[in-house]
Each structure stands twice: as structure tokens, then as C-alpha cells.
């Protein structure tokens, strides 16, 4: 028994090391590739600006966004005991997107109104979906996904309604941003995503033990001394904060929260103490690589990164489902 646990721990550590190595490689690849070829041995002044002011901030923001979305997905999936719980499918991303839009329309000059509104929007959407999905008999998977779809569609239609009231220039910046676009990020947006990403991952990991027990069933977890109500509030709030800041910085990058935790679970099993931090690393890798494709595929033109993550994420998800 003991040796088995030790072996699992060993395996976990090994996979963690591999993931960190992969993240390092992904970051290096992302730094080397771009629409402009850089002479790294001898950077001109202009190339230094391109590398340090444009390319690297964008890559690191992508990593933070990927980590935030994957951690939010991992947490929600365990809490709701539903493999389909994902920020995008549950309406959390759209709630954040609508919040950001409202902030943009009414408080354009206050940059920090966007993440705050995004967080509020994400929180409200999560709460609504959760309340809709709950019934006297508890919560079942179909109800949850259905509620998510309803809230997502409703929020989408409000977003469409709002965009048709905007003028053409603002509309263009929104349609691109809605698909997930890392190029519109600001320095402040990056710092905020970084700080919230780190704190969010730590908080979510701190709940891993409780989430493990809750996956067996909320009743059993309660009997083991888990304050299920408190865990639920913490996970929902953390997920909303993570998704809110990520969306405010880069729009709705879909499928990260779905695909990444699943892949991690296939590799290390369902222990959230590993799944949550590893999802953060893998999420960062996924978005950094997807954005590298978005930046270089048709350079010097650019694609929205959300289109790439969906393009990779959908077939990958179908493959994983079938293999299982």
C-alpha cells in the first residue's frame, strides 16, 4: 500500500518535471518565433523593442491566461463533479465578456473597471448557473450543462445586442477581442493576470484535499469534516476571479479549461493536489503554443488565439472522449 502511494507520488513528480520542461521549451519556441525574424546574437535597438516590449509581454500574458483558465476549469470540474464544467461552456466566460464590454462602454477611461466588471459578470453567471442547476434532489450533470448552455446563449444574445449599438471602430475591436486576442493587452492587464493567476492557483490548490473528498459525494465529504458550503464559495469565487481577469485581458479563449485538466487527469489520475497545479502549467503551455500559431501562421497578419485553441481543442477533445 505504502509503496503504491510512493510510486504514485514519484510518477506525479516525474510528470511535473516533464511539464515544467515542456513549458520552458514552449516559452523558448514562442520567443524565437514571430512575424519578424530577429537576429538574436546581435539585436538592433528596434529588435530589442520588438522582443522585450511586444513579443515577451504577450507570451507571458498568454501563459498567465492559459494557467488561469485551466485552473478554473479543473476546480469547477471537481466541485461540480462534472467533466463538462468549463468556464466557456458554463457561461462564466460570457459573463466576464459582457462585464468587460459594459465597462468599456460606460467607463472607457478607467482601465481597471474592466477586470472588476469582468469578475462581477463571471461571478453572477456562475451563481445563476449554479442556482438553476440545483434542485431539491441535488444537482445532476444534465441540469448543469443545460443551465450553462441557457445562460451562455442568453449572455451571447445580450452581447450581440450591445455590439449592434456600437459604432464600427469599437465593433471591430470587440469582435476580435471576443474570439480571444492577446495583442490588445496592456502592461497593467498583464500584472493583474499574473498576480490573480498565482494567488488563484494557490487558493484552488489549497482546496484540493477537500475537492478530492467532495468528488466522492458531498454528503461523505461533509462526514469527513469538509465544510462543503465554504469550499463551494471559495472555488466559485476563485474561478470567477481567474476567468474574469483572463477575459478582461484577452477575451474569451475557449476550450483551455476543458481540454487541459482532462489531459492532466489522464496522465496523473484524479488527485486534485496534482491536477490543479499541473493544469496551470499545461494551460500555460497550450495557450503559449496556440498564440505562437496565431502570430505566425499567416504573418504579418494575425489570427485571434481563441480560434486556434478551439480549432485544436475540439478535435483533441473528441479524440480523448473516443479513446476513453
Amino acid at each position, binding site marked *: 500500500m505504502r509503496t503504491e502511494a510512493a510510486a504514485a507520488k514519484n510518477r506525479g513528480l516525474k510528470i511535473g518535471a516533464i511539464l515544467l520542461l515542456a513549458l520552458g521549451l514552449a516559452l523558448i519556441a514562442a520567443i524565437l518565433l*514571430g*512575424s*519578424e525574424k530577429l537576429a538574436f546574437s546581435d539585436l538592433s535597438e*528596434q529588435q530589442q*523593442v*520588438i522582443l522585450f516590449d*511586444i*513579443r515577451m509581454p*504577450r507570451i507571458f500574458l498568454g501563459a498567465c491566461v492559459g494557467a488561469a483558465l485551466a485552473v478554473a476549469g479543473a476546480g469547477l470540474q471537481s466541485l461540480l463533479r462534472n467533466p463538462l464544467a468549463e468556464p466557456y461552456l458554463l457561461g462564466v466566460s460570457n459573463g466576464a465578456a459582457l462585464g468587460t464590454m459594459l465597462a468599456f462602454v460606460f467607463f472607457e477611461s478607467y482601465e481597471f473597471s474592466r477586470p472588476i466588471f469582468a469578475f462581477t459578470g463571471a461571478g453572477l453567471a456562475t451563481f445563476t448557473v449554479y442556482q438553476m442547476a440545483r434542485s431539491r434532489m441535488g444537482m445532476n450533470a444534465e441540469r448543469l450543462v443545460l443551465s450553462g448552455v441557457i445562460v451562455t446563449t442568453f449572455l451571447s444574445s445580450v452581447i450581440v445586442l450591445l455590439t449592434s449599438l456600437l*459604432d464600427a*471602430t*469599437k465593433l*471591430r*475591436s470587440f469582435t*476580435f*477581442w471576443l474570439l480571444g*486576442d492577446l*495583442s*490588445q493587452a496592456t502592461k497593467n492587464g498583464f500584472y493583474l493576470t499574473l498576480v490573480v493567476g498565482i494567488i488563484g492557483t494557490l487558493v484552488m490548490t489549497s482546496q484540493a484535499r477537500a475537492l478530492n473528498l467532495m468528488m466522492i459525494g458531498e454528503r461523505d465529504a461533509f462526514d469527513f469534516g469538509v465544510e462543503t458550503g465554504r469550499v463551494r464559495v471559495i472555488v466559485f469565487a476563485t474561478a470567477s476571479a481567474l476567468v474574469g481577469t483572463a477575459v478582461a485581458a484577452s477575451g474569451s479563449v475557449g476550450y483551455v479549461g476543458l481540454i487541459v485538466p482532462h489531459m492532466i487527469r489522464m496522465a496523473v489520475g484524479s488527485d486534485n493536489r496534482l491536477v490543479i497545479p499541473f493544469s496551470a502549467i499545461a494551460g500555460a503551455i497550450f495557450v503559449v503554443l496556440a498564440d505562437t500559431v496565431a*502570430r505566425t501562421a499567416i*504573418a*504579418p*497578419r*494575425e489570427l485571434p488565439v481563441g480560434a486556434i485553441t478551439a480549432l485544436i481543442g475540439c478535435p483533441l477533445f473528441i479524440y480523448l472522449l473516443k479513446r476513453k
Partner: protein
Amino acid sequence: MRKLALFLLAISIVFTGCSKQSAQKKETIPTREVTDDLGRKVNIPLKVNRAISLAPNLTENIFAVGAGHKLVGVTTFCDYPAEAKSIQKVGDTINPNMESVIALKPQIVFVSTASQMEAFTKTLEGNGIAVFVTDPNSLDAIYRNMEQLGEIFGTQDRAAQVTAEMKARLSAIREKVGGEAPVRVFVQISKTPLFAAGRESFITEMIEYSGAISVTRDIPAAYMKLSDETALAMNPEAIIIPAGAGNEDPHDVFRESAAVKNGKVFRVKADLLMRPSPRIIEGLEEAARALHPNSFK
């Protein structure tokens, strides 16, 4: 069930009655055939008195050839000349309201894109309304558009006069800046996200008449989101901003560019540069003056 059947029968009688009536009306009006930019043969009345324009530049062009008073409907985007503002609105260019269009009983509707055409042609032609597709996207195309409109509205003389004036003003500009080395400009279509005009955009060709060459002229697209890195590396000598809401200042990546450092950032009202109409000459003149101030002394 029987009631429903009777109701449907009644309705179908009313409708066939209507369509017969309109068919009869159509036959009594003598028509002629014109060819639009897609090569479609369009039947229009000999004398056109009621027209609708679904694009701001077409509205401008119709006014320019002296047929503005024949317009009974325009889009919410149509804001020039001032008279256009008081014409009944039928929605915007992307989403015109079909009911309003039909209710205004136009004889011809001018549309500027093929996508619009596909969606509306059937409905409109079914109602005996001609659809004329025209999307002038070069200087020659604007001249041709003037001719077409003059012919349709019977104002050929006025159209010829406008075209001649445009040509004269343009050759005056070219004379002044012709000897100068063209300035490498970046035309900033939108600031966030950073959009540029590529090879297939008419503005790329147009701007060359003002003694400039667009740094994004070789990119194979009309308009595209441009990579910040490439934009910075292009280091344009001047930036021309078709100015409008949200597009007033150069994008941050140009902070260290020659254009910004030398104060060569020029704003020209977006309507003067982005609408293929006679006013484009004004826009080009403004750009030429800004880029080559010495030639205009």
C-alpha cells in the same frame, strides 16, 4: 381543420390577386437594360424617379451626378451631403430593413457588395424592383460609376462634368508631388486592434496619388489585423490616420518610429479617404499637402 383550410385558401387568393396586379403594372412601364458591376443585366424603367442607395459612397455619387432628389431612401450611414440626412432611412448598410425598402416603392436599389445582393435580390426583384450592384474600388471604377449613374438617371452631362473636374484636380496634385520621392506611409485603418490596408484595398492604390507608398501594400488582403512586431519593424516615415471615433492617434508600436519622432502623423477625415466617391480627391489633396508641404507653397 376545415376552418384552417378555408383561411389558407382565402389567403392564397388574396396573394395571387396581389401578384397578378403587380405583374400587370410592371408590363405597362417600358424598360431598358443596363449592366451592373457583376455583369448582371438589370431591367430598369426608361426614366428612373425613385431610387434607394444602400451605401454612403453610392449616396454621395448619386448626389454628385445631380440625382440626389431621386433618392427616396438611404442608410443611417449616409451623412453626406447634408440633404442626405433628411432622406428616409432604411436601416444600415449591413442590415437594411426590407419592409421599409419595399414600402418606399423604389424602381431601383443600389447595393455595394455582392453579399447584400444575394440576400435581397430575390425579394426585391420579386416585387418588381431592380437591384444594381456596384462597388467602385479604384479611381477608374469611381469614374465608371459616375458614368453609370449619369446614364441611369439621365444626367450624363453632369456626370461627365464631375468626372472631368476630378481628373483635373487629380492631375494638379500629381503635377505638384510627381517629382518628389514617395513617402513611405502607414495607413492606420484602426488603432485597437491594429488594422492595416493591404494589396486589395483601394486606399493602397489611392494613397500613391498623393506622393506616398504604403508600407503594407504587398500584404495579400484588403484589410487585416497586422502583427505589432511587423508594424514596428516597418518603421514608416509618415502615418496617415483616416480619423474617426477610436482612431485618432497612432498605435503605441509606432512610438519610436520615424513618423512619430519627426511629427509626421497626419489625420484626414475617414470619410474623405475611405469612401470611394468624388470627395476622395479632397482626401488625397489633404494627404499630399501634409506629406509634401514644400510642393504646395
